[in-house]
């Protein structure tokens, strides 16, 4: 086992360590370190905050304070599929709230939540900056513009039913 590796053997910690080393463990680099952690793990667990606090020698209260201040940090894992609806001004004017509402109704969750089967998360963003294509959504990293509530719901349902079938196949195999 690599001496520099985290005791859990989880490689993702190496990325965080690298960022800390890059900034010579300066406390000022807390945001950079948290950014890396969010990227590597997808969300910031309590363990992760403690790890950063101990390594950077920054009080846990400050790590918690900083990480909860900024919107980009999340504290629970996202679903397998993630749909981001842009709710910026241009998208709002073109009816993005109706898209959010349609998805909330279709999947029985509020924006910012994940379905209980862990398949789908619905999130909103302030502005994705593609205002010329409003309303804009992002499904699993793929940007789609000029959408309607119907087109989005249909597309998301398609993506999810595909995953659900895969899950069933896996279950049967085991």
């Amino acid at each position, binding site marked *: 086992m690599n001496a520099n590796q985290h005791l859990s053997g989880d490689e993702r910690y190496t990325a965080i360590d690298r960022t800390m080393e890059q900034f010579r463990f*300066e*406390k*000022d*680099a*807390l*945001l*950079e370190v*948290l*950014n890396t952690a969010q990227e590597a793990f997808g969300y910031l667990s309590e363990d992760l905050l403690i790890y950063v606090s101990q390594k950077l020698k920054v009080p846990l209260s*400050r790590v918690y*304070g*900083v990480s909860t*201040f*900024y*919107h*980009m*940090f999340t504290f629970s894992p996202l679903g397998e599929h993630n749909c981001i609806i842009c*709710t*910026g*001004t*241009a998208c*709002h*004017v*073109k009816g993005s709230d109706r898209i959010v509402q349609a998805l909330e109704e279709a999947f029985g969750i509020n924006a910012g939540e994940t379905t209980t089967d862990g398949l789908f998360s619905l999130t909103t*963003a*302030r*502005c*994705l*900056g*593609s*205002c*010329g*294509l*409003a309303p*804009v959504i992002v499904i699993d990293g793929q*940007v*789609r*513009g000029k959408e309607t509530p119907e087109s989005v719901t249909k597309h998301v349902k398609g993506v999810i039913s595909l995953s659900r079938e895969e899950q069933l196949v896996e279950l049967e195999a085991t």
Partner: protein
Amino acid sequence: MNNAKLEELALKERRRQAKFRRRIFCCTSTACLSAGAGLTRQTLDQAVAACQCDEDEVEVVPTGCIGLCSRGPLVRVEQKQQGPVLYGNVSAEVAQQIVARYVPVRASVDEVENDGDSAQLSAHDILHFRSSLRAAGKKKELDKHLIPLDLPFFAKQVRVVLTETGQINPDKLEDYLAHDGYQALAHVLENMTPEEVCDEIQRSGLRGRGGAGFPTGLKWHFVRQEEHSRKFVIVNGDEGDPGAYMDRTVMEDDPHRVLEGMIICAYAVGANYGYFYIRGEYPIAIRRIRRAIRDARRRRILGQSVLGTDFGFDADIRIGAGAFVCGEETALIHSVEGKRGVPRIRPPYPSKSGLWGLPTVINNVETMANIPAIITRGADWYAAIGTEKSKGTKVFALAGQLRNTGLIEVPMGITLNEIVHEIGGGVPGEGEFKAAQTGGPSGGCIPSTYLDAPVDYESLSKLGSIMGSGGLVIIDDSTLMPEFARFFMDFCVDESCGKCVPCRVGTVQIRKLLDKIISGRGKPQDLEALDKLCWLVKKTSLCGLGQSAPNPVLSTLRYFKHEYEGLIQDIAPVEAGNGQV
């Protein structure tokens, strides 16, 4: 590297570009990428590679925002001795048609060598591509995608900041050099004292493009006069206004221009280190600025000896993590220091006590991007553009209910009418123009009766709005104004950092009042309370966020009061409302 070497590189790149008979520019900025420009570019690359024409026949250049984002992906073809041609909505199929029209096919099929960006193709691939090119060439639909370049959308614009966006490959330092890049910096280092630089910028009349409009030259003078061995420059790329993406475009599409402005600023104020503070939501901008810094270091444009002089400067990036308030300069400084991004009381201003308590200049991306042009073409030239108190140009992100939406740069003093009806092409469909919203959640709505007002700092603020960073959203009569005001208030409630009471509590109370009115439970006195509360928050909040948060409500109350009143009169007054305000 010194200036002579810089010019040598520029000349070499200019010669290289001049040898191509045609150059095909494919917009790869965020908006066009969202519309599928990634596939368009890939298709162009592969199709051109499959043609196997002579080397100096054609080059495909990934470039920045061409402007008309609503028609993306955009592709521009430039040919020797002919004017450029622009195509819109270029899907992969249309891209093949473009290649079929402009690129000759060589008869033989060789294995293609892998040169740079173009993909490795087997003989089978080549034949396959060629057959689809032949099929595409037979279709006569390409002209439908043609966008005339004499459209008012293009003709009405004056490009200073966006001169090279859409003309150069943003990832290529040489391309920027070939367009006279870093010549302003070389001139400043060789011929001007720091004081002269500050004077020149002050004479140009340039004001901060982040929204507040503070004279840039004056700010630089303040920092220059501070006697301290360590000073900093921060470029504010924390563009948080929803509906605004000017700064992102400039960083993505012309990163070296921003960097050049930053280095000139550092020389003028005597700073040796600087930071780009960029929103985490802008991964492409971060990548391109990072690359620009790396390339500039390699060419000794950054480092201990900038362009061979004894002036040393280096820069780094700090990534924001999604907090609107971090656009405020003292909050931004806290964020760069790795803390919660809360503002503090000014004075002391950052020019006296900024990053780590040291003198710091903070300028917006667009402000920095203006600097090289002012130095190269002179303060007098710049001051001749615009109005008496607002000089130069302003970049706007034009969005909402308009035919043409996208990124525009217009001279200060242009009327809203020209922007909406000529550049924007008016409201599409059945709708009618209702209001222009400037300045995002800090700005206001300007109704059609004031469309003849000139766009400059003073007249916009007289109308109850602000210039802001450059978001310009047009709304038609399908939008209800109290509801629109609540949309912005929702934003401010979320984004209030919580440090001062007027903003933290006041915004929530304003939203509650709006909720009450919109749901039809409002009483006549609620309108009065709303107005009072808005002014209270405006006058007593600590930072710009709170001071400007009521603007959307106040401006809609001023121009669209009948809509609020209509909501109140519709409902029987006695039992309505639960008394909670």
